[in-house]
C-alpha cells in the first residue's frame, strides 16, 4: 500500500475506531432515523408521494454528508494540529501532497461510510415506489463531489486558521449559506439574486438535479450541467485545501 493509502486507512480508523468518530456516525444515524420516520409517516398519511420522499431523503443525506465532511475535514488538519499529531506526519519523508492525498482519501472513506449508513434509510422510505434506484444513484453521482468539496474546504480552512474551533465555525457558516436554498422560500429562490446563487451553488445544483431525476423522471445524463458545477466546486475546494496544506507549519 502506498503512503497515501496508509494515511487514508489511518483516517478511516480515526472515524471508525475512535470514540469521537463513532459518536459522529451515531449522531448521523440518529438524525437519519428521525427524518426517515417523519418521511415514512407522511407517506403513510398520503401527504407526500414516493418521489418527493426519496428526493427529500437525498437532500437530507447530502446535507448531513456535507456536515460530516466539514467536521471530519476540520479534524483532519486543525484537530490533528491541536492534538499534536500532525507534526509527526509532517516530519516523515512523505511529501505534503502524499499526506494531503491520504487525508482526502479519509474524506472519501467518511462519505462512503455515511452513504452506506444512508442506503437502508433510502430503502425504508422509497422501497414502495419506482424512485429508489434513481435517488441512490443521483446522490452517489452528484452528492459525492458536493460532500467531498465541503470536506476539502474544511481542510483548507483548518490549515489556515490557528484553532480548530475557528475553522469549524467558518466551515459551518459556509455550509449554512450554501444550504440556504433548503431554508429559503420559493419566492426568494426565484429572485435574480436567488437564481444567480442557485446557478453557482453546488448544493442547489445537486438538489436541482435530484429534482429533475427523481421527481421529473429526467435522465441522469441530462443533468451534466449540474454535475459540471459540482465538479468545479470540488476542484476549487481541492485547490484551496492543497494551497493551505502547503503552508501548514506545525
Amino acid at each position, binding site marked *: 500500500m502506498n503512503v497515501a493509502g496508509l494515511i487514508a486507512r489511518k483516517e478511516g480508523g480515526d472515524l471508525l475506531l475512535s470514540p469521537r468518530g463513532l459518536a459522529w456516525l451515531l449522531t448521523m444515524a440518529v438524525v437519519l432515523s428521525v427524518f426517515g420516520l417523519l418521511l415514512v409517516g407522511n407517506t403513510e398519511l398520503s401527504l407526500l408521494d414516493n418521489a418527493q420522499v426519496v428526493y427529500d431523503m437525498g437532500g437530507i443525506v447530502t446535507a448531513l454528508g456535507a456536515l460530516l465532511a466539514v467536521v471530519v475535514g476540520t479534524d483532519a488538519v486543525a484537530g490533528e494540529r491541536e492534538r499534536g499529531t500532525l*507534526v*509527526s506526519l509532517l*516530519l*516523515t*519523508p512523505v511529501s505534503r501532497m502524499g499526506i494531503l492525498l491520504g487525508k482526502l482519501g479519509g474524506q472519501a472513506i467518511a462519505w462512503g461510510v455515511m452513504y452506506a449508513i444512508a442506503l437502508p434509510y433510502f430503502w425504508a422510505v422509497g422501497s414502495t415506489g419506482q424512485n429508489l434506484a434513481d435517488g441512490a444513484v443521483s446522490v452517489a453521482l452528484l452528492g459525492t463531489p458536493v460532500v467531498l468539496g465541503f470536506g476539502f474546504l474544511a481542510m483548507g480552512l483548518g490549515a489556515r486558521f490557528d484553532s480548530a474551533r475557528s475553522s469549524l465555525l467558518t466551515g459551518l457558516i459556509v455550509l449554512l449559506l450554501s444550504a440556504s436554498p433548503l431554508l429559503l422560500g420559493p419566492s426568494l429562490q426565484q429572485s435574480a439574486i436567488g437564481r444567480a446563487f442557485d446557478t453557482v451553488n453546488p448544493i442547489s445544483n445537486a438538489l436541482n438535479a435530484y429534482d429533475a431525476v427523481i421527481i421529473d423522471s429526467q435522465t441522469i445524463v441530462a443533468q451534466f450541467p449540474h454535475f459540471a458545477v459540482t465538479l468545479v466546486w470540488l476542484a476549487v475546494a481541492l485547490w484551496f485545501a492543497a494551497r493551505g496544506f502547503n503552508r501548514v*507549519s506545525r
Partner: protein
Amino acid sequence: MILEISHLKISLGGVSILHDVSLSLGEGEIYGLLGPNGAGKSTTIAAAIGLLRRDRGQVRIMGKDPRTEPKLVHAKLGVLPERNGFYDWMTAVDYLGFFAALYGLRPSQADLRDRLACLGLEPRPGQRIGTFSRGMRQRLGLARALISDPALLILDEPTNGLDPRGRHEIHDILIGLCTNHGVGILLCTHLLDDVDRLCKRIGIIVEGRTVAEGTIADLVRSHDHLARFRLHLNGNISKPDVPPEVTVIARNGNWCTVDLSPEIDPETAWRELLFMGWPITEVRRESGGVEDLYLSLTDRRAA
C-alpha cells in the same frame, strides 16, 4: 557537522521571534539547547526541521536544507516534539508500524515489540495508547523518533513525565545511540541535570539570540565561575597542601568544601589532591556548573 544553524532569524505573524541563533552539532554528540521559557528554543527546533520559513540565516542537516529537500532530510531525522500527540485508538505496535510504513519500512510485529521493549515500554496486548501514562507516551514518542534509525535526533524535553529510573534509562539509551551508532542529538530541556549528565556542548538562547555556545567546561571557565565542590575524606590529610588553583573554604567532619578556579579541570584537581595525600572518597558539586552559568546568563539578559 550533522546540524548547522547560522544567524537564524524568524518572524511569525510579523513578530520577530528569533533574531540571531547559531549552533552546530557533530556526529555522535549530544548538544544541549537551553533557554528560559519563550526564548525561542521550540521555534529554533521548528526551523531546524524545516517547518518554518526563515527570514534570514542558514540551516543545514547533513549538508542539506530541510526547506528545499525535506524528504531527504526527514528520512534520516528523528524528532520528539514538545507537543507530542498520538492516535489514542491505536495500540503502540500498530502506531509504530504505521510510522515505520511511512518511512518505507516493513518491520514484523515482533521487531516492533522489541523496539518498544528496548525503551522500557511493554504494554498489555491490545492496550490502546489512550490508556497510557505520560511516561509511557514519552517512551512511545521516542520509539517513533527512532523508528528510522536516524542520524540526527532532535528531542524536546524527552524525559518529561518520567520517573528517576525512567530518566536514567533514557539517558543510557541516548548515550548508547551516540557512542555506538554515532547519532547526533539536539537535546532541548529545562532539566539541567540531564544536560550535565549527557551534554559536552551547549547553546543558551535568550530572547531569540544565542548568548553562549561551546563546551560546558569552556563556558564555565570563560564566565569566570569558581566551581565549588564538597569532598568526602576518608581520614585525615597528612599534609594540608593544595594546588594554587584550589582554595579550601571550610572543613566539617569528614567533609571539606573547596573552590576550583576556572584554570583547572576538576579531574586534574582531584588527581593532584590525591597525589598530595588527600583521601578523597566522594566528590559533590555545590555550584559553578551548568546551573550557575545558565542562571547568570539568563539573569544578565533579563536585567
